[in-house]
């Protein structure tokens, strides 16, 4: 144990003196939290802007525009009547626009159908929101004109025990992201550097064993990730008033996740030629995992094929487990994912413990 602690201390001192390492472990996650928190939790509008050209300019069209505004998801902006709408859309790079025809009121009063035209790019998510909102507003408008009342009405009830904010959903993903990047990128690089600079060979002349060296790296990165998590949690609470909680299972998941990504980094580091290649390999493995494993958005929102890919990525279980216990209080699911993470971690640890050789051939 003395040798392990000595190695943890020496490694930690060097790590903290390397400003790049400290930046990515501590400062970068805070920046991410602040950045995403500001984007999604700040006072700015998250409504989809819709540009309306009201050629009718009538009480009926005013009411329709007001109904659009009342949906709470659209923010109505105006296109002047004299503009040619397609030219205006192109010149102003608009995603969605709506044209209310000049005979809007006349036809309604004559009890005739009238079309409002929605312009937009269906590949943009804002178009889908605008279409649903315009459709909803038109239906509501129709009911009122027909003096009918809807029979089936949706009723909403919040299922979260607390008043969740977006940042609460985002925090576990950023913690998972940090648990992935710092140990994975760090260890890939460390292993490559230790091999190319013959540090392994030098260490082999001491009483420190391979297993002890590996264990010391897991201990260091676990400590670092817990500190990093505490800082991110404090920022989330103090700056954005988040309500996510750090649970014992979350702490175990962070340690288990660190364990598996430290081990994965060692495996990659065993086979890369030098530190430059190490960075490229870690990026190639790490970056797709970041996006596919639900760090920034839930896995369920991805196309089915990518969801299958996500289910084989170890980070998915860290992210989903953290989200389950920190946000939804679903400890049963979190425990399951903790178990999966531990098993993957043990398998990944055994590989370098067996295959990593400090001896020359």
């Amino acid at each position, binding site marked *: 144990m003395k040798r392990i602690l000595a190695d943890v201390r020496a490694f930690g*001192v*060097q790590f903290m003196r390397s400003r790049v390492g400290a930046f990515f472990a501590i400062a970068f996650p805070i920046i991410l939290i602040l950045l995403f928190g500001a984007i999604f939790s700040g006072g700015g509008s998250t409504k989809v802007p819709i540009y309306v050209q009201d050629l009718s300019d009538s009480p009926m069209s005013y009411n329709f525009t007001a109904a659009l505004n009342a949906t709470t998801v659209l923010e109505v902006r105006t296109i002047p009547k004299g503009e040619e709408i397609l030219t205006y859309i192109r010149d102003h790079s608009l995603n969605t626009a709506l044209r209310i025809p000049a005979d809007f009121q006349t036809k309604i009063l004559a009890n005739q159908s009238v079309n409002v035209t929605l312009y937009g790019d269906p590949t943009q998510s804002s178009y889908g929101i605008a279409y649903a909102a315009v459709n909803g507003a038109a239906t509501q408008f129709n009911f009122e004109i027909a003096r009918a009342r809807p029979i089936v009405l949706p009723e909403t009830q919040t299922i979260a025990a607390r008043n969740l904010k977006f940042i609460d959903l985002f925090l576990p993903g950023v913690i998972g992201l940090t648990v992935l990047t710092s140990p994975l990128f760090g260890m890939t690089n460390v292993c490559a550097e230790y091999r190319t600079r013959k*540090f392994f060979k*030098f260490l082999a*002349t001491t*009483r420190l064993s391979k297993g002890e060296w590996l264990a010391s790296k897991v201990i260091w990165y676990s400590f670092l990730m817990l500190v990093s998590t505490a800082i991110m949690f404090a920022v989330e609470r103090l700056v954005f008033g988040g309500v996510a909680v750090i649970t014992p299972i979350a702490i175990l998941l962070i340690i288990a996740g660190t364990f598996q990504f430290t081990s994965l980094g060692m495996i990659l580091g065993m086979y890369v030629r030098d530190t430059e290649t190490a960075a490229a390999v870690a990026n190639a493995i790490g970056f797709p995992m970041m996006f596919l494993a639900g760090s920034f958005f839930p896995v369920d929102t991805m196309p089915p094929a990518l969801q299958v890919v996500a289910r084989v990525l170890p980070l998915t279980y860290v992210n989903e487990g953290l989200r389950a216990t920190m946000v939804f209080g679903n400890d049963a699911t979190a425990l399951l994912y903790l178990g999966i993470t531990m098993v993957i971690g043990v398998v990944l640890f055994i590989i370098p413990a067996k295959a990593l050789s400090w001896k020359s051939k």
Partner: protein
Amino acid sequence: MAEVVIEVRGLTKHYPDAKAVDGIDFEVRAGEIFSLLGPNGAGKTTTVEILEGLRDPTGGEARVFGVDVRTGYAKIRDRVGVLPQDFEPFDRLKPREAVAYWAALFDRTLAKKDVEDVLERVGLTSRADAQSMTLSGGEKRRLGIALSLVGDPDLVFLDEPTTGLDPSARRDLWGLIRGLKAAGKTVVLTTHYLDEAEQLADDVAIMNKGKIVSHGTPEELISRHGGGTTIVLAGAGQDGAAVLAARGIPATVENGNVLVHVATPSEVRKMLATVAAVEIPVTEIYTKRATLEDVFMKVVGARMAEGELAA
């Protein structure tokens, strides 16, 4: 006679495309500086790495403190200190921290004063709190030697400790290595610097292409492979050599100088008087003792480049 610390018998290390070590035998006795000398690629580092337990041999026997290096190294790990070839310290550790860290890896706890003593011994006290990446090449090697000594080993392997250092730093390290011998340590020194081996070693094994081609004290090697003294007639050229030849004195010409080899020391004065009496235009006459360099020229056939062997 001193205890045998290292015993090597028929040691081989073969790779599919090369025989790095090809059946070598030698012994190293306690308290001596043993030098493995040879050109790059001769098999020196492979040999010492086998003896350090860092590489498994293909065949033969290698024992350190009586223990088979293949199976029993854990028993003697504490008694062996190693400075690897091309040693580099951990960039961001300070020498003071590095010494304490390395000692802990041998399960030793060094008091602050002990750390100071180790650093003082290698002349690094003034740089104890500088990050290692800022140390000079010589200081880094000194730190490497300090780390090899923190376990207080009886046997120290120094693998090309002065390669790449300037002459002043090299001579400083020589003093340090002599200090190890004075402290009773056994030192195995690999080098490709001839003067280093000649200055430091009690026993020299010359390796080439995986084999030991000659072995003995520096004096024995010089004596065995020519020895003697050379009288140099500087600037005498081919004409001078012809004049000497006409008088029955064998001579060779090298770089415009005429060299007359005298095998036995008692003949030197007489021959010096003879050649000095011959009317040959010279700029200088001096004598030169045979060195390990001359031995190398014979047994390795290597060429010298500024004192460094190139195969």
